[in-house]
């Protein structure tokens, strides 16, 4: 690599060239020096503009939450006067919430959500972890085909197999069960893909050492490799939980019994029943059903954001 700087090639003598060029640059760059006051004013003005824009946006974004909370503690007469008043004159919180809780089994909905999401997550992890490990570390026939299939399945949203699955479940008579709600989601191709990436980075030497120590492969997976992936698993758990807590399409199809309804479906039942009348109770119900996730978000903001935006890191 011939890399010596070539002193011969500069145009004219170096000193001449540099001086001439500096003159050029000088002529182009004579700028009136900015006074410190102008600089500060500029900075303050830009701050004001930035925050004005951001706050306007934030106001629009937070408006529904605010209104939800406020309406849920207002009495009906105040709700039905179309004013912009924010704070209620009289508090009707107890009534609204009581009505909401009694006319619909809201806590039941939340419980259903919990059961379904926990069940789904468990099976997802139980099946995905060994499979991801096998894809990452073991050689077996059909490995590449399996990987290609998982990639393909990644692109297929749940609404696609929904129809045939529904027919099959209906024929077997399994509609209106927890199992039917969980079944299509037992497989998480995303988890397999994500964990495979992670396991690929796990040092082979540790696994070899464990094998030499006499550990069975299953033990290796659960006791050595999985603990190292806990952050990724935790983020995925958040992602899975939130996605399935908020899912409407599939439960709508397989569940008609309100006792089994998860939060979105339950809310839909409740809203249908209370059409057009008791906004106080409606917003109270909405508050109750939205609260768990929102509180979880506020408590564990970083993990939440990391989990939900995992789709971005895919």
């Amino acid at each position, binding site marked *: 690599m011939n890399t010596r700087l070539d002193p011969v090639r500069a145009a004219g003598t170096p000193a001449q060239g540099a001086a001439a060029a500096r003159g050029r640059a000088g002529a182009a760059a004579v700028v009136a020096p900015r006074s410190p006051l102008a600089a500060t004013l500029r900075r303050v003005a830009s701050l004001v503009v*930035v925050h004005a*824009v*951001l706050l306007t946006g*934030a106001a629009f*974004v937070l*408006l*529904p939450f605010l*209104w939800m909370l406020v*309406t849920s503690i207002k009495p009906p007469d105040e709700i039905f006067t*179309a004013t*912009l008043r924010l704070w209620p004159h009289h508090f009707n919180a107890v009534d609204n919430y009581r009505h909401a809780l009694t006319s619909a089994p809201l806590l039941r909905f939340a419980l259903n959500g919990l059961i379904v999401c926990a069940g789904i997550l468990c099976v997802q992890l139980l*099946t*995905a972890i*060994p*499979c991801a490990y*096998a894809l990452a570390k*073991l*050689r*077996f*026939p059909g*490995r590449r085909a399996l990987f290609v*299939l*998982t990639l393909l399945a*990644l692109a*297929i*949203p749940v*609404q*696609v*197999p929904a*129809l*045939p*699955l*529904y*027919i099959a479940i*209906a024929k077997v008579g399994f509609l209106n069960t927890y199992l039917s709600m969980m*079944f299509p989601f*037992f*497989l998480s191709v995303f988890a397999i893909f994500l964990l495979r990436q992670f396991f690929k980075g796990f040092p082979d030497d540790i696994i070899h050492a464990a094998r030499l120590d006499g550990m069975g*492969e299953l033990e290796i997976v659960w006791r050595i490799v999985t603990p190292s992936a806990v952050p990724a698993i935790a983020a995925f758990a958040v992602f899975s939980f939130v996605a399935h*807590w*908020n899912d*409407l399409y599939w439960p*709508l*199809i397989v569940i008609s019994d309100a006792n089994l309804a998860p939060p*979105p479906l339950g*809310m*839909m039942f409740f*809203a249908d029943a209370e059409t057009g009348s008791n906004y106080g109770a409606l*917003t109270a*119900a*909405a508050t109750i*059903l*939205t609260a768990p996730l929102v509180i*979880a*978000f506020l408590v564990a*903001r970083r993990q939440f*954001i990391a989990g*939900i*935006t995992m789709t*971005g890191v895919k």
Partner: protein
Amino acid sequence: MTTLAEETLAQKAARRRLRLEKLTGIGFATPATLLLVTVCLAPLAVLVLMSFTDYDLGNLDFKFVGLANFTKALHDPVFRRSLWNTLLYVAIVLPLGVGLALLVAILVHGRKRTRGFYEVAYFLPVTSTLIAMATVWTFLLHPKLGPINALLGVVGIAPRAFLSDPSLALPTLAMIGIWHLVGFNMVLFLAGLTAIPKDLYEAAEIDGCANPVDRFLTITWPMLGPTLMFVIVTSSITAFKVFDTVAVMTHGGPMGSSEVLLYSIYLEGFQYFHSAYAAALTVVFLAFILVFSVIQTFTLDRRVHYG
């Protein structure tokens, strides 16, 4: 120096290990593979097959009718309208959902003390249960009782029935879709912005890139390119899959102006039980999604190339 017999022993052991590894691999992958077939691949195959039949749920038998379902869809005004509505919805949600998120991300990125507050505020809709919030939105948009119309009244605009006006229903749902999406995209953009090395901006500042416009055009926009492509594609897919707000707020009305593809599929397949027809519509739906996903795969490749 090993003898022939010892060599064969070593080879035998190696072969045994290899076979054990193969069996273990297959064993580990089996549960997931079974699920994959049961939950994804088999239904997919059945779906495609079914779209070529005339099966309605409850029928005792069916026959193959070739592309009849697809031709029917092509000429079906309801389907065409719902496809059009879906694409219109995407066309509204996409530029605003991506553009606004980018703007907010750039503004929030520079904040130090208020950044946490803004992140929480904008991301809150993403965590909330959309159905519950949809109910709140119905109230917010109420012609007589909702604060939005009251606000409009203050400015002197007549109250509008957002959800009962055929020309307003879909755009209104689009606005709610944007509301739900902006925080998500904002976080993705923030991650992309954070990944831009700070000394690029410093070098650019020394080179003369001083005002915000120059900084954006020279560094931010090109460096965000891959993130931007990714956000556009995922937002397109998310928007295309719109269902919840339609199902809860408008039920496809008024007069079908907010009926979207997934809602049509839902009606055909699970209310009217025209299974084969719904299957055909689902195949169309899948085709669109696959196109978006393919684009996504190619842009991901480009992102890896970039570093």
